């Protein structure tokens, strides 16, 4: 089985997920990395340690990612080399261009894949319902898969050869890249906090944020939140934990009414101690927490506060 892994890089750095794609590629068959950009030799060398072949696609117009040009050059390469499987990272970039590429190739696509099994046909696993349920899907090859970060961490080392694909974009991009916008900086940097009280949609209303603040204060920590809490304007954007917010590794992460969606978990899973309160015993957050409490925030937190105050 010939497998293509489309590497990703930004700000001059290779996304480590690119190597994870190659780990999977090596498991499935002949691993080919593809790296696209203006000058990608450095990345190609790095990828060659994990791939049998590395295809470079270089052009000045490819300096910054645009989905149009990525699809344009990948179509040329894929139609020529005919891989059985095309792997792309399930990132803001990967899950953007991969479906478009799949349509143009007429291939099936499955996103956010966490396992691949070839014992009985080509079967891939992914979560649905925000991590609560898993589904196995049979897909025909050739196909396109986007792969979740962290799912294929182990793999073989290789010392592959770097090839110039000799491919250029066939037309200019319809979508023009303008620039990157830096994250806003706020008063509190939650990524430096040692104790975080994080609230999710389970906090129900802006009016209940002070309860979390009081608890954070009693513990000497700060309040952070999941995305819906920030989207609703209950906490400022710089308090968001997760892939599109901040990565935190505090000594204590107290998760209140957070379900544990992957995009959130990626931002807090390396915390030293995670305690989660959730009224749903099946909440995926209990898969990453060290301690779990099945219960209502509004019962647990006031009691905890009383006891903490009584100690002082």
């Amino acid at each position: 089985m010939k497998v293509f892994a489309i590497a990703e890089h930004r700000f001059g750095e290779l996304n480590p997920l690119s190597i994870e794609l190659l780990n999977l590629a090596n498991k499935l068959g002949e691993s080919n990395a593809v790296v696209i950009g203006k000058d990608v030799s450095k990345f190609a060398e790095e990828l060659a340690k994990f791939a049998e072949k590395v295809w470079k696609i270089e052009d000045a117009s490819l300096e910054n990612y645009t989905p149009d040009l990525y699809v344009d050059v990948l179509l040329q390469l894929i139609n020529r080399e005919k891989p059985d499987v095309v792997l792309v990272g399930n990132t803001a970039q990967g899950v953007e261009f991969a479906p478009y590429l799949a349509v143009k190739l007429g291939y099936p696509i499955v996103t956010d894949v966490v396992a691949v099994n070839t014992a009985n046909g080509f079967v891939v696993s992914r979560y649905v319902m925000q991590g609560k349920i898993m589904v196995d899907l049979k897909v025909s090859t050739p196909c396109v898969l986007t792969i979740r970060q962290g799912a294929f961490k182990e793999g073989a080392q290789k010392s592959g050869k770097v090839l110039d694909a000799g491919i250029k974009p066939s037309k200019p991009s319809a979508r023009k890249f303008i620039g990157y916008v830096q994250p806003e900086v706020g008063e509190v940097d939650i990524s430096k906090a040692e104790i975080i009280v994080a609230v999710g949609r389970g906090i129900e209303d802006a009016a209940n944020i002070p309860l979390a603040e009081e608890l954070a204060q009693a513990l000497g920590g700060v309040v952070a939140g999941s995305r819906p809490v920030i989207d609703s304007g209950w906490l400022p954007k710089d308090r968001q934990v997760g892939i599109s917010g901040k990565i935190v590794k505090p000594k204590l992460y107290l998760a209140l009414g957070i379900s544990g969606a992957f995009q959130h978990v990626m931002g807090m899973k390396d915390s030293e101690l995670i305690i989660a309160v959730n009224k749903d015993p099946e909440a995926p957050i209990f898969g990453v927490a060290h301690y779990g409490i099945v219960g209502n925030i509004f019962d647990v937190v006031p009691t905890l506060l009383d006891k903490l105050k009584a100690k002082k």
Partner: protein
Amino acid sequence: MKIIVLAKHAPDPQSEVGIASDGKSLSLGTAVFDINDWDRYAVEEAIRIKEKIGGEVLVVGVGKNCDDTLRKCLAMGADRAIKIPFDGGIDAYQIAEVIAEAIKNEKFDMIFAGLMSQDVNNALVGVLLAGMLNLPFATAVTAIDIKDKTVRIKREIEGGYQEESELPMPCLLTIQSGINEPRYVSVMGIKKAKTKEMKEVKLEPKSKKVEVVKMYLPPVKKAEMITGDPDQVASKVIAILKERGLVG
């Protein structure tokens, strides 16, 4: 400005969801259904643009039971709706295919879709549709600024960064949550919605790209559970924190 918005009537994954007895589909008997959260932002954004510069907002829903969501969009301020009474599952190709067919005679400047659905989480229908219709596109859009026939957008990437780009129209954008603050439906809106057109277009997809082998509960549970009444729970939590020197 004419904007087509895709809106899914979807179960809330945080309500009670399970696996049906066939082991291949979801059991959603008691689940709470509403407009997919990401689509709510997409509809709001389209209506805001219309209110600012004029035009029309057309919502498209797929599913035999999507009326409530389409009515909600009309009540929010969309002008008309197309309902495609096809119950698709996890195969996003099929959904995109029927939508492409249903809107083939509509002229439009932009199509908005939610970044993903809250139930299936594919994040596919929008971009697949862009591919089928050969449209320029952008995903995870967090800001939209229209200038004549181009649209300047910001899209979310990792780590709090955003990418700024410019697209020609017509184009397709998938909308990230938080782009705006979606309005509540007013009584007035609900009344008006009753007079708005909801057209049913019966369509079946031609392709089948994926097949469900099985559904199951993921192997989780790593946490040690702290049990007891709130008082006991709080004492145990404090003991754990104390052990680690996190409280005095």
